[in-house]
């Protein structure tokens, strides 16, 4: 199965299989509807496509990605589950855009209580300044994406996607830094269980044994949606890069 993320480019000198409109009726430059960026149907036709403008499909995709980002406001971004024989009912925490909570009502408190045995600091949402700004970052990214979709400028799209990726990487790095801090900076004075060389950093992603607990760290629903939105945005950017190159190529050919 082929994914129809790029319009088909007919072999040179043949009619487009789907009966695309003749190139003479090609899109007016700068119009919002760039006729889906279809390449010339007939070889040698003049294409007046604007390399600065996104196709309608891409714009819908960008808008969808921008809106999907908002799911991160309500759904958990990341989920760390702890598995142990004594917890058949499960124990875990969720990192949300603005807070950290237990999967079940008392889970965070219970995790903190267990962590006191190894001298880990209590995990308290108020200790993470990031949680105060992250909602605004998400809203900002979403608005930016919508603006990109409305304006339809390719360069804005590239910029938006770059910012998105950088912030995502920064977020993961920050998450790693906190996990490292909690896992390594233990209160050795008060720790009840001390195992030389042992740290309790949960994995960024994946599973790891931490004493009697097996920690599983995976994106939450909001995280997965955000990842999908990022992928969609990246795809949109890639698509536009290719379309723009084609247009320039076609223009060159025509010129």
């Amino acid at each position: 199965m082929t994914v129809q993320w790029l319009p088909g480019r007919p072999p040179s000198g043949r009619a487009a299989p789907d009966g695309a409109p003749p190139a003479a009726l090609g899109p007016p430059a700068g119009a919002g509807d760039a006729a889906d960026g279809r390449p010339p149907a007939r070889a040698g036709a003049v294409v007046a496509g604007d390399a600065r403008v996104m196709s309608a499909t891409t714009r819908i995709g960008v808008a969808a990605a921008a809106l999907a980002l908002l799911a991160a406001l309500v759904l958990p971004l990341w989920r760390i589950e702890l598995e142990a024989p004594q917890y058949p009912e499960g124990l875990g925490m969720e990192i949300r855009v603005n807070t950290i909570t237990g999967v079940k009502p008392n889970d965070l408190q219970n995790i903190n209580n267990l962590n006191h045995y190894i001298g880990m600091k209590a995990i308290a949402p108020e200790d993470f300044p990031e949680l105060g700004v992250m909602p605004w970052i998400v809203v900002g990214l979403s608005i930016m994406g919508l603006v990109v979709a409305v304006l339809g400028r390719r360069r804005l799209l590239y910029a938006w996607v770059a910012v998105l990726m950088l912030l995502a990487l920064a977020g993961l790095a920050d998450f790693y830094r906190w996990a490292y801090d909690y896992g390594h900076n233990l209160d050795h004075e008060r720790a009840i269980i001390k195992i030389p060389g042992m740290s309790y950093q949960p994995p960024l992603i994946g599973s790891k044994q931490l004493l009697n607990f097996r920690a599983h760290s995976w994106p939450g629903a909001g995280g997965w949606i955000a990842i999908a939105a990022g992928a969609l945005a990246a795809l949109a950017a890639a698509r536009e890069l290719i379309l723009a190159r084609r247009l320039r190529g076609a223009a060159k050919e025509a010129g």
Partner: protein
Amino acid sequence: MARSIPRSFVLGLAAGAAVAAFAYACQTTGSHGALDGDVASRVYVAPGEHDEFYAFLSGGFNGQVSVYGLPSGRLLKIIPVFSQNPENGWGYSEETKPMLETSFGFVPWDDAHHPQLSQTDGVPDGRWLFINANNTPRIARISLATFETEEIIEIPQSAGNHASPFITENSEYVVAATRFSVPVPQRDISIADYKAAFKGTITFIRANEPGKMDIAFQLLVPGYDYDLASAGKGPSHGWAFFTSYNTEQANTLLEINASQNDKDFIAAVNWKRAEECVAQGRGRQVAVSYVHNHIGEDRVARSERKSGVRVLEPADCDGMIYFLPTPKSPHGVDVDPSGEYIVAGGKLATVIPVHSFSKMLAAIEAKAFEGEADGIPVLRYDAIIAGEVQNPGLGPLHTQFDGNGYAYTSAFLSSEIVKWKVGTWEVVDRIPTYYSIGHLMIPGGDSRKPWGRYVIALNKITKDRYLPTGPELVHAAQLIDITGERMKLLLDFPTMGEPHYAQALPAELVVPRSVRVFDIQKNTHPYATRSEADARVERVGNTVHVYMTAIRSHFTPDNIEGIRVGDTVKFHITNLEQDWDIPHGFAAMGVENAELLIMPGETRTLTWVPKQPGVYPFYCTDFCSALHQEMQGYVRVSPAGANVPLTSNAPGQVRVAAGGGR
């Protein structure tokens, strides 16, 4: 030697043995005695799997309720109700002691007979379980969210609360009738005045609002022994039926003197009619005092004195009560799921009489009375009887229904369950029980919609069923499959105390309600310590309050000094855990009291009056964590008048106030 025995004799012996073996095999591979291959799998609940039914068995003389899973017969819990339970501090902790208060004072024990599940539309709904105290008349309500007794109401002007609590179709009322008639009002008179002065009472207690159980009204009835009861259902909703014996009104050697009459009575009470009479202001208000105990939102029990009961005599309210003549000292009375048939267990009778509710109404309409007893119309037996089950076994006691048209009656003397068809009254099957069955129970088998898969035999005599344990043996119960044409014994299991009646319902009606922890943020106990930072000691006169917290794996404070002989120490311990199945326990050396088990989020108080100076260790008694053995502390007790200041190593500030103590 064998050679000298004639061959024909040997062959004859062999043949005889073969016949005997064949006969034995026929007997034991029938539906009754033996267990065929799939029986074990019918009751096998794999490790980690759950039972289909919760069963609640009364504990009889242990005053408690045992919770079993069915079909496995596994004991899940014992719920303390009317008896102190040092295992978890029930009746010993300050929070629970008021539950055992009565108008006679603190009664630490009772004899609990008949559990009754709350019902909606005549079907168990999984909210509560009620149970009677037979000795000092009371009814308790147990929550099926916490499996704890939450409320106990005393029944005034009663004695031997046996015909109780038998609930009405929408839990409007639980009932209480006197097995022992007594002087009403109670007074110092000769026992020889029994016939003149002793009365029975039938009490209706409002039951459908937790925390607000209340005596609605009480019927003053002739001085017989009222034995068991059953509320009407469907068409007979609004009526309740009570068996009686000793209509001879004997006050000595009842086994002979109360077995003289050919027939005793079932009292049919039209409680809707009684409600009307009460609403019209009939009857009289009697100034009697009784006690109502209830655990509040703060999980602290309070005992409240109430007074005044509305009493109706039969003459106050025509049409309220009728007597249905019933052979030979009837014991159980059970209304079938349709509400039409009222089955009596005439324990000395040779038949099971079944009365018809519709015929009873017609007989009342037609005034088909054979006379009156103490002003109560006695209906004609032939005008109300629907049928008699012939050859029902010896000593029929109680009947349950499977919802498929069959009834199952326990027969004490012949030690069996007899299955018979409702309507044709023919016996279709019987199965032995081990031994001398009392009650029997089908899940929902007294309701409008029985879950008719199993019947449990609750037996009075155990003898050789299990390994011997000296003179005192547990009671035995049998689980019997009733899904087929013939009953089939599946399982034999030991029970706690002496189960009388029992109840059961599908687990899914209870599981979603089950509480795991008490929310520490909602702990409104007056002596709660909601965080370690608040843990402290306080002296108020001669009383020292220790506001202690428990969380894995330490108490705060765990060093206390400055207590003096002559002080009363109150350990108010709050379990700060909010994790499922992490109770903490508390016990201290030499405390003349039980331990405490404190559930997550809960506060419990243990009172201690130290008598000797010394240093007393205390510790957590419920293995809570890997560092459970470290969960301990010390209390120093100094001589009376010593000037050791009150101190502790808790973060909260020590407070000392004069005053008389609390």
